[in-house]
């Protein structure tokens, strides 16, 4: 077959070009050549040992992507991205990092300290090469006991019938499920970044909760150990069968360095009758320095389909990182009486830009949605809430409540609210309110009077402002997120 021949040729040519790590095994392979074309996609597919249908799916996405234009409607500003100047296959990552903590940016280490992250873990997060610091690896194992914990977890999940594995494994092991659901919520040509992701995704998770099963644990701790170096083009698919329940947590409160500037993830959730999915995110990718140099571009498509009656999808996000955040976790409320929720805290400081919000598409009868968004802007940053609530003609007695509050700290930043409200059903009720304010002088004064430093006072007030969202996070993360908010706003006052 010509396709295979081509792939082989590519592999060969790359190998011959003296590529350092060669292609003998996946572990040793570091980077595919820069650029994006059909051969690279074939290469990814081959490396991932994917069946033919997966490759075809990727190529279809690639063909669609070629015809699409990068969206420019968001209130974000960045130099043009050269999509041919990126590596599309880079797993598993083994780039030469700092040899020891001494070589790590002291600024970063101070931040870890404030977040209360154990010393050994700090080294890993900062990207210190574990090969050179063997003891670090061991220490981390000691802290998290990753191997045994992971094994115990896997056993527990297996007994419950839950499938939780890397998406590429699911493509091989559970093709029928992947084929049925992949791209069913976010179609390959949904948008520019989703199409790109569909063509080249390499990492991500697959979760399947069978009928009536309540997932025995939050799929969070496991994830934190397992996905230390999450990829650039992540793909996550979560399927909750009738009556099942799962809580999934991604991300980490610790700031993470990553050499990949462009991140374009896609997350798809499917909830059948009476199923519930709770998806929590703490995003703290490198935001760039205080001058606005560097930082991650986080262009994410997240969407959940409440397919079944009385199903529920709840998104909670704390977004503090990335130079640019472009994400709109959404719910398609198709099943009658299904419920969608979106709780968001987005903090921007220095020169960060965030354009984030949600879409609630009410299709079924008696569907309900709640949107609580808290945006905090400081420094020279811009923070935009952009959301859509759409009541379709069939959404009888549907209900939406939206509250978007913005807090400005300093007079060089911007806070914007762009809600779209569309109703085509008279029995549907939509309520939207938005406010913009600053930290009140009297609140600050009150805290200062009681001996809190100005920064602590701001941290306290901001946490109060975000309380409605933070309380939706799983407990352990809520605590970390609170610290994170204060750290993210450092230097914004005084």
């Amino acid at each position: 077959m010509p396709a295979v021949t081509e792939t082989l040729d590519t592999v060969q040519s790359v190998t011959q070009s003296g590529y350092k790590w060669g292609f003998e095994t996946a572990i040793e392979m570091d980077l595919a050549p820069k650029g994006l074309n059909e051969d690279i996609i074939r290469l990814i597919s081959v490396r991932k040992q994917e069946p033919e249908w997966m490759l075809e799916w990727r190529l279809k996405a690639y063909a669609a992507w070629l015809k699409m234009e990068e969206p420019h409607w968001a209130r974000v500003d960045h130099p043009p991205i050269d999509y041919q100047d990126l590596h599309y296959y880079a797993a598993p990552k083994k780039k030469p990092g700092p040899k020891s903590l001494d070589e790590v940016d002291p600024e970063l280490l101070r931040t870890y300290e404030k977040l209360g992250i154990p010393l050994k873990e700090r080294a890993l997060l900062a990207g210190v090469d574990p090969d050179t610091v063997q003891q670090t690896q061991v220490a981390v194992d000691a802290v998290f006991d990753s191997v045994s914990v992971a094994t115990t977890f896997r056993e527990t999940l297996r007994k419950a019938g839950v499938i939780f594995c890397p998406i590429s494994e699911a493509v091989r092991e559970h093709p029928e499920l992947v084929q049925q659901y992949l791209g069913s919520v976010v179609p390959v040509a949904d948008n520019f970044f989703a199409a790109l992701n569909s063509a080249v995704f390499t990492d991500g998770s697959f979760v399947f909760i069978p009928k009536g099963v309540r997932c025995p644990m939050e799929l969070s701790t496991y994830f934190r150990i397992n996905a230390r170096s999450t990829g650039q083009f992540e793909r996550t698919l979560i399927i909750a069968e009738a009556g099942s329940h799962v809580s999934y947590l991604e991300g980490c409160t610790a700031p993470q360095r990553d050499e990949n500037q462009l991140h374009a993830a896609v997350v798809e959730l499917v909830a059948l009758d009476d199923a519930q999915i709770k998806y929590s995110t703490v995003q703290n990718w490198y935001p760039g320095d205080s001058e606005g140099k560097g930082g991650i571009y986080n262009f994410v498509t997240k969407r959940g389909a409440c397919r079944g009656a009385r199903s529920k999808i709840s998104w909670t996000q704390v977004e503090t990182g990335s130079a640019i955040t472009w994400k709109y976790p959404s719910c398609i409320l198709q099943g009658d009486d299904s419920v969608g929720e979106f709780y968001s805290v987005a903090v921007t400081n220095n020169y960060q830009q965030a354009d984030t919000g949600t879409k609630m598409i009410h299709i079924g009868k008696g569907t309900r949605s709640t949107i609580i968004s808290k945006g905090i802007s400081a420094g020279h940053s811009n923070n935009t809430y952009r959301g859509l609530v759409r009541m379709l003609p069939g959404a009888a007695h549907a209900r939406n409540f939206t509250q978007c509050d913005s807090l400005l700290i300093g007079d060089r930043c911007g806070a914007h609210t762009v809600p779209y409200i569309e109703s085509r059903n008279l029995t549907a009720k939509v309520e939207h309110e938005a406010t913009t304010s600053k930290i009140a002088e009297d609140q600050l004064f009150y805290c200062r009077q009681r001996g809190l430093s100005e920064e602590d006072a701001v941290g306290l007030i901001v946490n109060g402002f975000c309380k409605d969202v933070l309380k939706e996070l799983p407990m352990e993360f809520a605590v970390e997120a609170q610290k994170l908010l204060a750290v993210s706003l450092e230097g914004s006052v005084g």
Partner: protein
Amino acid sequence: MSATLTGSAGFLAKFETLQGRLPGDSNMRAAAAAAFRAAGLPGGTQHQRRLESWKYTSLRPVAEARFAPDAPPRHEVETILSGLALLDAPRLVFVDGAYRADLSQPPAIGFASFAEQAEMGTLTWPDREPMVALNTMLASDGASLHVSADQDGGVVQLVSLATRDIDIHPRHCIRLDPGAQLTLLEVSAGQGTYLLNTVAEFHVAEGARLTHVRLQDEASTAFHVSTAYANVAKGGTYDSFTLNIGGRLSRTEVHAELAGVGAVVHLNAAQLLDRTQHGDFTTVIRHVAPNCTSRQTVKNVLSDRSRGVFQGRIEVARDAQKTDGYQMNQALLLSPQAEIDAKPELEIFADDVKCSHGTTVGELDAEQIFYLRSRGVPEHEARSILVRAFLAEALDAVANETVRAWLERSVETWWARRAV
């Protein structure tokens, strides 16, 4: 307009024919024509690039309409005029776009028609707004009003009537010097399939006060597009209320800039729509100076298969500290086929501000209906009471009682022609 061409091509052909005979700055017209040629009618053709500001309104029906300005009038001016029950106050009447001295009663303040003294003004953006470009290209008449310092201009009625299937592009410019006052009543009505595409600008100088009340009661087959720009200086007030009840498709767009310290802007409106009417009320309030206040209450009552649109943006610039902005937008759906699309936006760059907006969409409250019915009020009447109460909140903003009573009559007429 050429009898054979419709849409953008038709308007451009009309410009080719009239070029050189139109009053005012010909360079500005040529530039506007270039801008309009590039942009076209918003949503006019299928493959056009969509403009975010026209997300919910497409002028496709305008693009498809055939205007015939040379045909004889189909309706009597007097009949239309008497139906409006105008106030006993100075009036400036324009029929099919041309000033009619015989029907007018000029005010004591400075007045000149655009045909005599073409003033294009300084506030408009033909390069950004296709319909403003269209107007700039084709405007042939309009009113230029000037109220001198500390003068009270009283009430002036600005009336636009259409009697034929015609495209009209009025251009108005209203200037209030420091401390001046004026109540401007703008009325548009007519018969036939016509397009009224008005551009108006309002200069409110220091401490001046302009009250602007509009009634859009166009023919049910007509298209109404209106773009207004207001600039309010230190301590000035631009207080406006718009009632949209007519037209097959209407778009009312207002750009108000609070340019001086302590300026006040009110952009209130009510839209009562039924049948297949489409009504779009779009506003941009720009807070440029500190300590300014803006208030907005917009109510939509939507019946049958009508569609209401509200887009309202409040912009607060860096230096506009201590801004106080409030916007309330509510829609009442009276029929299963009615639709509302709302986009209330905040764009804020100053930290010491108080800005908020609220939107509600829904039907009449069943409990309220029950309350009234339990007290012996028949259902139809109960609904009518509740809809009027809903509207009253917006109409209450009109302080002048004579004017408010006149608006309320139009609401009654609307009410009388339909059963809830």
